[in-house]
């Protein structure tokens, strides 16, 4: 024993592979840090030498330019701040409950009280906070007099808007195309596979140009708009619809709808419980509809009309009022959705086909209905294969949305580019661009990884 230890000690440390590996890693890390530090120093020195100002102070200056599409941005103060605090607290508390339940070897769905607690923590309490503090919530909308920061946030909101909608629509469209490709109908199957091949193999920028300059500019001019009763107006400046304007009854009305959805959730739970206990599912459709229509209608009667409609009217050059959907936004959303849905369709199709045929046959042998075969047996197993590659498609949407600048949509890169030119602060703006896109991508990855972990095969 002692001799063994003695021999061990005699080996000089540079011969020890583990220590050597560590030393290499340290040298590598040191080298990287040195390069990074030198680059930083060099940048500062070069900027200084050329008399170019640096730092982020310029972000407070007045922007002065106009942005075509602005979203209301909540100001982080008063009621909104408390809402965020309540929401974050609720999320952490729910997480703590989940961890605690896991320690006790219980699952969340088996315990009614904890479900209610979680709903209260994440849903009801924050909404109540929002309701109580609703007087002090203020939104700001970008104008020429706003600061560069507000301009950047407006661009960011536009990017997020198109990214989220793009992810949702491309998934739905992808699922439909995938099911179409798997269809036994020869024509549908062929059409869907042409769709995939066509859209997957054309560059996305080209597709955006196609939708924007070729398809959407063919629409009639403002004076020759397609007008359906003042409700639906379409021309080459966009699609105009009436906008709801919130009245005093809006808050209770929204709360009533939220409450109706919570109620529907419990109706579903009851139905599943009855199915498991008695063999017949509880009624879903009628009680749900009654709740969804009845509760808000009751509130409407009591608290007065929640909304009035603001119709778009032709004034001078353009329609004003209402909601407008610009051709830039539409072209970007449609272009990205169509492009990415082709990839999504292939991912979903391969996921479904990867589930062994025996599973399908077994499910049919149990006399499950065809839609139950898909929903209860095939899709849950296919999801495990589908989710990881879908993450990169969602990332692709977020990143490709920066092509917006080519078709005039004021996204984050477009607005940042304008600021870059007005202020000349290239290093800072490029830094902000990189930081923000990295954050968006990491958040998407985080969400998808969490979902992936949730649906993965639980080994017992």
């Amino acid at each position, binding site marked *: 024993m002692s001799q063994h230890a003695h021999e061990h000690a005699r080996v000089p440390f540079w011969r020890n592979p583990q220590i050597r590996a560590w030393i290499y890693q340290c040298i590598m890390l040191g080298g990287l840090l040195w390069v990074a530090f030198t680059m930083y120093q060099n940048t500062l020195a070069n900027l200084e030498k050329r008399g170019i100002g640096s730092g982020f102070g310029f972000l407070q200056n007045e922007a002065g330019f106009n942005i075509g599409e602005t979203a209301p941005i909540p100001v982080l103060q008063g009621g909104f701040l408390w809402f965020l605090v309540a929401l974050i607290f609720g999320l952490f508390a729910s997480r703590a409950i989940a961890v605690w339940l896991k320690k006790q070897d219980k699952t969340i769905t088996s315990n009614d009280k904890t479900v209610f607690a979680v709903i209260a923590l994440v849903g009801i309490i924050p909404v109540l906070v929002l309701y109580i503090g609703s007087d002090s919530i203020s939104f700001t909308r970008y104008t020429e007099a706003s600061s560069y920061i507000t301009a950047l946030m407006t661009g960011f909101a536009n990017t997020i808007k198109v990214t989220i909608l793009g992810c949702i629509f491309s998934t739905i469209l992808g699922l439909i195309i995938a099911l179409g490709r798997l269809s036994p109908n020869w024509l549908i199957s062929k059409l869907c596979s042409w769709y995939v091949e066509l859209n997957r193999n054309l560059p996305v920028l080209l597709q955006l140009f196609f939708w924007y300059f070729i398809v959407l500019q063919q629409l009639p001019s403002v004076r020759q708009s397609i007008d359906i009763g003042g409700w639906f107006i379409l021309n*080459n400046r966009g699609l105009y619809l009436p906008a709801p304007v919130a009245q005093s009854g809006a808050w209770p009305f929204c709360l009533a709808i939220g409450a109706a959805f919570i109620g529907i959730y419990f109706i579903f739970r009851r139905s599943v419980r009855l199915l498991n206990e008695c063999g017949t599912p509880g009624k879903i459709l009628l009680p749900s509809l009654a709740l969804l229509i009845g509760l808000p209608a009751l509130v409407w009667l009591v608290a007065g009309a929640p909304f009035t409609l603001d119709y778009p009217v032709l004034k001078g050059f353009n329609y004003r009022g209402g909601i407008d959907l610009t051709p830039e936004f539409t072209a970007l959303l449609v272009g990205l959705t169509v492009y990415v849905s082709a990839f999504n369709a292939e991912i979903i199709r391969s996921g479904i086909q990867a589930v062994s045929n025996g599973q399908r046959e077994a499910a049919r042998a149990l006399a499950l209905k065809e839609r139950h075969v898909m929903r209860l047996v095939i899709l849950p197993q296919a999801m495990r294969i589908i989710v990881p590659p879908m993450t990169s498609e969602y990332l692709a949407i977020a990143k490709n949305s920066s092509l917006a600048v080519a078709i005039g949509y004021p996204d984050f890169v477009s607005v940042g580019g304008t600021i870059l030119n007005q202020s000349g602060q290239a290093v800072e703006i490029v830094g902000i661009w990189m930081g923000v896109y990295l954050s968006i991508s990491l958040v998407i990855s985080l969400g998808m990884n969490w979902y992936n972990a949730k649906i993965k095969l639980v080994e017992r």
Partner: protein
Amino acid sequence: MRITRTLALVIAFALMASSAFASTLEDVTKRGYLKCGTHIENPGFSALDSSGNRIGFDVDFCRAVGAATDVDVKYTPLTSKERLPALQSGEIDLLSRTTTQTMSRDTNLGLDFTVVTLYDGQGLMIRKELGITKASDLDGATICLQTGSTTELNVADYFRKHNMKFKPVVFDKQPDVRKAYDTGRCDVHTTDVSGLAAQRSLMKNPEEHIILPELISKEPLAPVVRHGDNQWGDIVRWTIWLTMAAEEKGITSENVEKMAKESKDPEVQRMLGATGTLWQDLGLDKDAPVRIIKLVGNYGDIFDRNLGPKTPLRLDRGYNNQWNNGGLIYAPPFR
């Protein structure tokens, strides 16, 4: 897309050894050619002709500086977003790309503006059929414009000042702005009047569009150099002034050699290097002025050849006439 280029420039800042740029003149002579930043495609200012040569008003001033230093010129086509970083990082020696002189560009960005080569102003182009005759009738209009220029701020300021509203549709490249305006996405196309004239010449039906009489900004366009190399700045400045003074004295590319030998005017003699050491003091040789005028002609020739009434742009001299002819073009004395 173009972002990669901006990125590359930023990385160039990080990697460049701090000791670069000793003297631009030395660099240019050693390299054997001048790197000049211009428009990608802006007829009259910088565009390719049928045989693939770059021609235009801005290009001629690049060629003049090339002749002054006796080297060839290589052109770097740049978008308006890229142009200033390209000069700051040393990718080009001279930026001649309809760049408006402003205070913040002159001070905060490490740049120096040389001589105003064109007194321009931002204008508004609109379809004739709308029947609008003045800019104050444009409340609520949709306006197509290019990002990364003073245009965006001018039009916003103008509408704010007159308490009017507008919706901008902002593109990265001038051809896309033109396409969007031409297909009817916007009511108004705005940029410098000279640029509007150039863009109009490329529309489907140029005669359907009018440029409103109001100018909503002052746009003194000047070639730009980096701040800190005074000798290089002086070379560019006096090269441009030489073309202006040559017009005043009636010197053209045809008669410049004869004038240099035979002129009795002492200022012409000094100006063309026949007497004195004006050009040697600048770091050039005494033949430089004759080379410049022989290659590009005088200021009036440059204007007429690229922008004047006989070109598709059909611009009048206006402010860009000689000072003794009611304009603002005024070269300091050569002595």
